[in-house]
């Protein structure tokens, strides 16, 4: 397959020349996905921990729903956010459609269930381990939320990375709510889709390689931070 060597050459050419539109696209991809993951973590971590620790009516239903939402197709999320943000929709007055903000909103909806569901599992396991001890110290579920989130932080980073993986890899939602507008809402995944539609498969695959490399470096960075801080705390 010549496509693969062409793709590699295309990717290398773009990176080495520090192609201006490439850096813009990469920058926007990171801005959108990292913001979405940060907001999703702020919501998903406490919500996931609360579901794990509190016993309430309908809890089973909520656990199943959050788990099911992990499999929500991005294109459906995109469509929902489109209908909400469209001028004809309830939030139309803000004029947010086809902006990076709309893309962040869509990705927050995609990523929050992933972080919440994984957090619930992690915290539930920790609670089984520590419940007796914490209760003997007079700490109920309310006090345990921050304590266990902190205790499980290294495992929870993996939950956040899973969310980041989802955000940076999806194309369905950002395509619909962003519109893939050059210099405004064009990110890595939508440019790949665009190059495929132009039939420039080598360039598309090259962009895919760059995206994979970026994702790998973010994961490597997180792993290194995890391990160096773990050693400090040991």
């Amino acid at each position, binding site marked *: 397959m010549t496509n693969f060597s062409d793709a590699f050459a295309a990717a290398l050419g773009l990176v080495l020349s520090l192609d201006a539109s490439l850096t813009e696209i990469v920058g*926007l991809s990171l*801005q*959108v996905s*990292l*913001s*979405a993951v*940060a*907001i999703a*973590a*702020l919501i998903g971590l406490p919500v996931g921990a609360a579901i794990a620790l509190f016993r309430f009516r309908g809890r089973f239903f909520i656990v199943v729903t959050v788990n099911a939402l992990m499999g929500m197709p991005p294109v459906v999320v995109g469509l929902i956010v489109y209908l909400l943000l*469209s*001028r*004809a*929709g309830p939030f*139309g007055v803000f*004029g947010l*459609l*086809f*902006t*990076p*903000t709309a893309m*962040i909103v869509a990705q927050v909806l995609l990523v929050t269930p992933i972080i919440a569901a994984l957090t619930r599992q992690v915290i539930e396991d920790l609670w089984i381990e520590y419940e007796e001890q914490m209760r003997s110290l007079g700490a109920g579920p309310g006090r345990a939320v*921050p304590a266990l*989130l*902190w205790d499980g*932080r290294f495992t929870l980073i993996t939950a956040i990375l899973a969310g980041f993986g989802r955000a940076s890899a999806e194309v369905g939602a950002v395509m619909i709510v962003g*519109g*893939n*507008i*050059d*210099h*405004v809402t064009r990110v890595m995944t939508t440019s790949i889709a665009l190059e*495929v*539609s*132009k*039939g*420039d*498969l080598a360039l598309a695959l090259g962009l895919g390689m760059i995206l994979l490399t970026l994702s790998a470096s973010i994961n490597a960075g997180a792993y290194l931070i995890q391990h160096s801080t773990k050693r400090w705390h040991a």
Partner: protein
Amino acid sequence: MPGRLITTALVAAVMGLMPAPAAAEQYITLVGTTSTDNSGLYGKILPLFTARTGIHVRVVSVGTGRAINIARNGDADVLLVHHRASEEKFVAEGYGVKRYDVMYNDFIIVGPENDPAGIGGLKSVVDELAKIAKTKNFFVSRGDDSGTHKKELSIWKIAGIDAAKASGGWYREAGAGMGATLNTASAMPAYTLADRGTWLKFENRGGLRLLAENDPLLLNPYGVILINPARHPHIKAKMGQAFIDWITGPEGQAAIKAYRIKGSQAFFPNAKQAVSR
């Protein structure tokens, strides 16, 4: 500390929510067809308009059906598509102010190099599609309610063939844009109806070649419409009209005429010379 983690996350979140620097510029949103975008036309002519007026044009490219839907919702300022009947209906229903001719090009039939259905020598596109249907050779349809799709359906109708009945058999509906459909056709290989601009620019032809062209039925006119500010008050009517005046005026028309893909003219300007005000 958890505090620091949260602060970092908050800062990142706020950074993300801040409008991109581009938002400060004057712009209109143009919703148009994938075929004009994939052909590379916008990249060539829009900078000229921006240089002249300082107005940036944000292009959202989708099939004509969805483009009209987006315009109907007021999510764009200007609509540039290629299905005359839908455009006139859009204006008649009060969603658009007025339709202007902009340019035209044409559709072509591409297919496998060895032309297994033998359409090469035929005179009319109706006969060609009929032959593909009769010999049950693969035909990939856009299947996405785009202008190109509607054009294809209208030809099947004239030929008296119910292609949808063969859907999944020799008739395959891709439900995708022009480029993606050409990718599918090239991989199968299969026949398909494509607009000339996208075909000229298309890089992944594989074993496909141009087999039929130059039938009056295959003419592909584009129209441009300002979304009606009476219906959607946030529409940037002045800037949108400035764009329409420009693209239907001498400078825009000359730019369309000058645009070449690999040496061939891709679009033919046909705006009425009198510029509306």
